[in-house]
């Protein structure tokens, strides 16, 4: 696999307007999910009087902090449907947005290290196949063929007992994804407003009528919250709770290396996932820090734990130098599945709870949330992910496929 040349950067990406006094739809959160929602509102539903409000800079939160893994090999039908829809959108995204996002279907290996891992993995492969998701069980020897730098020997704490492989999975260049959505949304008339923090909501009875911001009040026919780890702070202001705990999730990159890692490797059991970016950095993620946190940083021992696992699995990494570490704040639910849909407030919608796996869902979540906003009713894809499942008990337990233990 060769290194791709970076294309010319366009001279202009998006307008930088001041907020208007009123919009049909205000989206809170200018990350991947918010930008994709705005784009699909304009493209699929013809709703263009839309503002995306971002308290910092566009795509500067988790969109800039994730490890860019894209896959759809989730266990349950509901999850397979929405993640596979998302993957199909990824497959056409460069063409749809007219922008190179370096989407690379290099496959994802999810390793199994215990007998229970093996059983769970085989079950998940069969479930994936029934749902039309490409998946196969691979032996340790096949793991080695797919990724020659992996140690499949018996001399490590948790030897590789095989894995699941999804060939259509892969990675994309996250900041370019955000810029691609932002540019198209802006062209279609969406106002992207940065440095605009929501400080409250205006209500008429049970109905939201607008948002209060540090740049003044903005009227809104409908309001969508797409603020990932900070969702609870918004819903608190809107007067309802979400079953979310916010945790730091850390990632790191090495300095640049020759291309030695041809795929994406994830290991739930030893808490490491790694791919090699187009420029050559090894991109790795750790498990979440267990405590609640909004500090956009985690504790060093979590990184240490993850690095020791990475070096066991990939002995070649022992001599790599760490270039940078950082943390993002992920919104974790008790069933490791997202919440996308209506809220107790009329005219207000949420897209949150994607926890450690929100990046892959950017197109799918944006597609489903745009439909939900436009019709005041969920799409079939996000209907099962309603907030009320925590009352009805119809949970979608994806802890096994979520890859980062939490």
């Amino acid at each position: 696999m060769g290194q791709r040349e970076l294309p010319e950067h366009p001279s202009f990406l998006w307008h930088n307007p001041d907020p208007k006094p009123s919009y049909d739809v205000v989206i809170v959160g200018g990350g991947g999910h918010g930008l994709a929602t705005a784009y699909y509102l304009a493209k699929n539903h013809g709703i263009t009087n839309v503002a995306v409000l971002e308290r910092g800079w566009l795509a500067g939160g988790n969109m800039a902090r994730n490890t860019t893994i894209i896959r759809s090999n989730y266990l349950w039908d509901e999850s397979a449907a929405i993640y596979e829809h998302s993957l199909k959108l990824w497959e056409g995204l460069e063409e749809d947005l007219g922008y190179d996002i370096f989407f690379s279907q290099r496959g994802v290996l999810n390793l199994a290290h215990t007998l229970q891992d093996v059983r769970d993995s085989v079950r998940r492969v069969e479930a994936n196949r029934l749902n039309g998701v490409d998946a196969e069980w691979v032996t340790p020897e096949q793991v080695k063929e797919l990724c020659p730098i992996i140690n499949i020997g018996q001399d490590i704490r948790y030897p590789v007992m095989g894995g699941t492989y999804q060939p259509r999975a892969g990675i994309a260049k996250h900041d370019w994804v955000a810029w691609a959505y932002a540019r198209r949304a802006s062209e279609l008339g969406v106002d992207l407003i940065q440095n605009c923090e929501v400080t409250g909501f205006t209500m008429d009875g049970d109905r939201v009528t607008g948002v209060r911001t540090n740049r003044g009040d903005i009227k809104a026919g409908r309001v969508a919250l797409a603020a990932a780890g900070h969702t609870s702070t918004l819903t608190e202001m809107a007067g309802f709770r979400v079953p979310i705990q916010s945790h730091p999730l850390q990632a790191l990159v090495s300095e640049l290396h020759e291309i030695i890692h041809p795929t994406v490797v994830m290991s739930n059991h030893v808490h490491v996932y790694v791919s090699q970016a187009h420029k050559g950095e090894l991109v790795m993620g750790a498990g979440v820090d267990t405590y609640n946190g909004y500090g956009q940083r985690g504790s060093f021992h979590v990184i240490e734990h993850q690095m020791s696992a990475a070096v066991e699995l990939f002995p070649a990494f022992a001599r790599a130098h760490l270039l940078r570490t950082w943390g993002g704040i992920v919104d974790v639910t008790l069933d490791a599945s997202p919440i996308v849909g209506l809220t107790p407030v009329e005219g207000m919608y949420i897209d949150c709870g994607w926890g450690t796996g929100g990046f892959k869902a950017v197109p799918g979540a944006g597609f489903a949330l745009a439909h939900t906003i436009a019709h005041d009713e969920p799409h079939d894809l996000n209907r099962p992910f309603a907030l009320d499942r925590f009352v009805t008990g119809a949970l979608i337990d994806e802890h096994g496929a979520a890859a980062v233990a939490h």
Partner: protein
Amino acid sequence: MFYIDCPHCGRRPEDEFAYGGQAHVAYPADPSALSDQEWAQYLFYRDNPKGSYRERWVHSAGCRKWFNAVRDTHTYEISSTYLGAPELTDAPEGVTT
């Protein structure tokens, strides 16, 4: 990495401890009397503030005892630790958040 004052063992590094989530969430006195909504609140809903938070920690690699801490979830600064049973619905007198 931060340090936590175990009420029994003193100041120790964070990785000797395990986290237990929000403090003072008491088991409902009469669970069967709860509505589905109330039961969901008990099972799945916890506070998630950006700021001061009262939470449970256990000193797993030390005395193995549970205690409470008041920690800022933005700065991660711990302002106090104190003993208290989980069935207490609030911090004992004298603990300021």
